[in-house]
């Protein structure tokens, strides 16, 4: 990740909080790819993903003042902004309706793969996809779809405690894979 690092993270954050456009420009150049992969791992529609990337950066710009570098890394904070925005978009009524329409049309026309991405092969989801089914479904529902553990417990009819421990085990496995 230290490729072409011009700013130290705290320096970058400080400049962003002072509304330096150069710093924002750098932020985009440096983080857009990784944030875009977070978005497209949740949102298969490319057009929507593009809109979301813009929305996410605007959110970052607007909410940078609320970011506290004592609590975590800048990327982690931005990752969660991107993830939440993507989940909100996928869960929106509008998107759901579009999906239904798409499913209907897909029966007639083979939709080109250029617009729809296979989210299973992107970023963290690629790793999660390889986990055991009982783990995978929990990470899918919580991390990629934004359901609370309580909701998942009710959906899958599994006790909340089991949901919690299985999810944590899944995340430990995930960490083992991504650990450098």
């Amino acid at each position, binding site marked *: 990740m230290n490729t072409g690092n011009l700013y130290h993270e705290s320096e970058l954050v400080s400049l962003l909080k002072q509304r330096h456009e150069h710093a924002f420009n750098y932020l985009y150049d440096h983080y857009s790819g990784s944030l875009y992969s977070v978005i497209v791992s949740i949102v298969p529609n490319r057009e929507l993903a593009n809109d979301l990337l813009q929305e996410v950066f605007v959110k970052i710009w607007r909410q940078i003042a609320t970011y506290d570098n004592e609590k975590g890394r800048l990327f982690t904070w931005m990752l969660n902004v991107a993830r939440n925005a993507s989940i909100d978009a996928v869960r929106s009524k509008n998107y759901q309706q579009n999906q239904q329409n798409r499913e209907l049309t897909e029966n007639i026309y083979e939709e080109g793969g250029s617009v729809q991405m296979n989210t299973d092969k992107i970023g963290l989801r690629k790793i999660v996809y390889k986990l055991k089914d009982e783990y995978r479904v929990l990470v899918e529902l919580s991390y990629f779809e934004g359901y609370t553990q309580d909701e998942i417990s009710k959906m899958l009819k599994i006790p909340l405690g089991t949901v919690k421990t299985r999810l*944590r085990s899944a995340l430990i496995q995930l960490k083992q894979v991504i650990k450098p």
Partner: protein
Amino acid sequence: MDIHAYIESGIIESYVLSLTSTEESVEVEKFRTEYVEVEAAIAEFSQALEQHAFENAIIPPPELKAKVLAAIKEARGVEEPTTAMAPQTEKSFVVPLHQTTSWRMIAAASVILFIVSAAANFYLYQQYRNKEDDYEALLSQRETLQAKNDVYHTQLKEWQSAAAMMADTGMAMIKMASAKGKDDAATVFWDKRNKDVFVMVNKLPEPQVGKQYQLWAMVDGQPVDAGILDLSCTSVCKMKNVPRAQAFAITLEREGGNKIPNLKALFVIGNV
């Protein structure tokens, strides 16, 4: 408490990925200040996550950057007018400078235009005045010509009627010559049918002021008034009806005429 067991439980990963409940988050944040290991574990997973994301980055379409930067500019313009001071002052130096020069240019141009326009107006007014004078002169000239034309026209008509009278076989023409051997001459046309008398002055001196020529008909040796020659009569003038006469004569009398002719002022005379 066994902090290593806590760290190994997966709570750290859950926390970093925002999958913890509020109570769990409060707990992690409490421990991270108390245990260096917790802080280190958070940092380690965060870095691993970040590195993985960078290694699996997907480059967004290049045209997106301009859109994002434009959206930022817009967002900035809406919420933070004060933070954008630096570039604004830069602009505020440029814009008014342009404005003053352009205003100065416009002012100078308008003054020049005004002077040119005033000069043009003066010139055109002079021209107008000259033309108006010319026009007035032409107008009076035309009126003079018209008046003269009217005169000639009347004279022509009179000459035409005189010519008609001369040609008329029912009309007796009596030529009157000077009684004093001068070249004074006048002609009487006497209609034999209705006895109307017309006189044509061929040549008589201009009468003095207060005097008029008077035509007389000599009837049996006695002069009879046949009318006064009007001053306005320039060619053939209708006189009084004369039923019988042996001769006609013109004398110069006082204005309005006399009952008896002043024979000393006999100008022309002619026998029928």
